[in-house]
């Protein structure tokens, strides 16, 4: 190759680099700034979801295979354990039903808003690994099972995230710890309302705009406040773990630990 041709090549690469580089930066800022690319992401799910499901299928098959070959006695133990758990949960459920009925009646007396009974859809997390910073997971239930954009997702312990994209047979869930996520919460102890922000760290939520004299102590339980209309009222969210008050600052910085097992959940419930 002649030196002249090589030079020409390099020029072409540089032009392309500049044009495409600027385009990339433009796309990223548009994506970061707002919801402009939501339609594109939504359309893209129709392509990405089948791929996710296709990758998930053999893994599921293999893990099912392991169950098939595990010892009879282990399985029997497991069934016994689960049955015991079932009985205990049934008992708790009975109590809850009584309380829920009572609650409805009280609300009727007070002429308040009726709580609609919510339905739960069980979904498995799809075994694909997204970028660790994206704070998104894929679940194997979609619009045919009634999963729709904006629905709250919980695991056994607490609020997990919300559905941000939904296709026929799968949906994407954005975790409450996503750096762009804000969640209206209420302190269960005294009803103080505030907003819990995601931090980009799977184990931390932050409350940054709380006046320093607000009554909040370590160990307080935060639940969804139902404000904003996105999440149902009273789902457990997080436990306050640290409160930092700096003299110069008019606001306290509060850290809370999400109750849901963000990095371990295998199954979640979509609240319809």
């Amino acid at each position, binding site marked *: 190759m002649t030196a002249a041709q090589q030079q020409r090549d*390099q020029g072409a690469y540089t032009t392309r680099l500049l044009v495409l580089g600027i*385009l990339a930066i433009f796309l990223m800022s548009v994506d970061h700034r707002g919801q402009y690319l939501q339609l594109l992401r939504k359309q893209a799910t129709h392509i990405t979801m089948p791929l996710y499901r296709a990758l998930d299928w053999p893994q599921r098959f293999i893990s099912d295979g392991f169950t098939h070959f595990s010892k009879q006695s282990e399985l029997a133990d497991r069934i016994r354990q689960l049955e015991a758990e079932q009985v205990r949960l049934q008992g708790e459920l009975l109590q809850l039903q009584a309380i829920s009925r009572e609650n409805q009646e009280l609300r009727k007396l007070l002429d308040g808003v009726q709580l609609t009974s919510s339905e739960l859809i069980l979904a498995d997390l799809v075994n694909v690994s997204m970028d660790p910073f994206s704070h998104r997971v894929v679940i194997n239930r979609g619009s045919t099972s009634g999963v729709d954009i904006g629905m709250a997702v919980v695991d056994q312990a607490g609020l997990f995230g919300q559905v941000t994209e939904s296709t026929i047979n799968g949906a994407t869930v954005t975790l409450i710890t996503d750096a762009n996520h804000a969640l209206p919460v209420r302190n269960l102890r005294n009803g103080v309302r505030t907003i819990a922000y995601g931090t980009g760290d799977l184990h931390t939520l932050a409350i940054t705009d709380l006046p320093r004299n607000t009554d909040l102590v370590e160990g307080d339980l935060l639940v969804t406040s139902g404000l904003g209309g996105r999440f149902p009222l009273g789902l457990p969210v997080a436990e306050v773990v640290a409160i930092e008050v700096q003299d110069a600052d008019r606001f306290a910085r509060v850290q809370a630990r999400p109750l849901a097992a963000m990095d371990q959940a295998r199954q979640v419930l979509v609240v319809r």
Partner: protein
Amino acid sequence: MKFSIFKDEKALLRASVVAAVVFTLLPFPLPWMKPYWVALVIIYWVLEAKYFRRLEMVFALGLLLDLLTGTLFGQHALSLLIMTYLLLLFRQRIRFYPPWQMTLIVFLLLGNDRILQLWVLWLAGQIPTWEYWMSPFVGAAVWPWVFLLLDRIRSNQRQRQN
């Protein structure tokens, strides 16, 4: 008898890129142990066969990766774009380096990429942990095997064709 399932080099190129994308999506027991597969495959093909001269291809591949892994739309595109550009500029020199030196170059490219992506993450308001910085080490450790595997398949193919 040498046997290859790939019709020609282009087929192997396509298969290796698809495999890299699939490997990216497969969960690893330790997430930080996952190398930047797509980058490794691109490095191989740019160095050895001067593919991806049209940077649009790399850009599109990056956008696909962004959609699949849920990163900011354009993050992987920019990362792969700059990596490929650097490779195309210096490939004449890098190609004839001894293997250990080439591995070092791969390490530097991946490290440079981490710094670039850190800048993107930082602007988006995220600060990565130590695990984030493990990727170049893992990538450099895996590189020789990726190189040898692809090289072996390719030379088998050539022998078969001759």
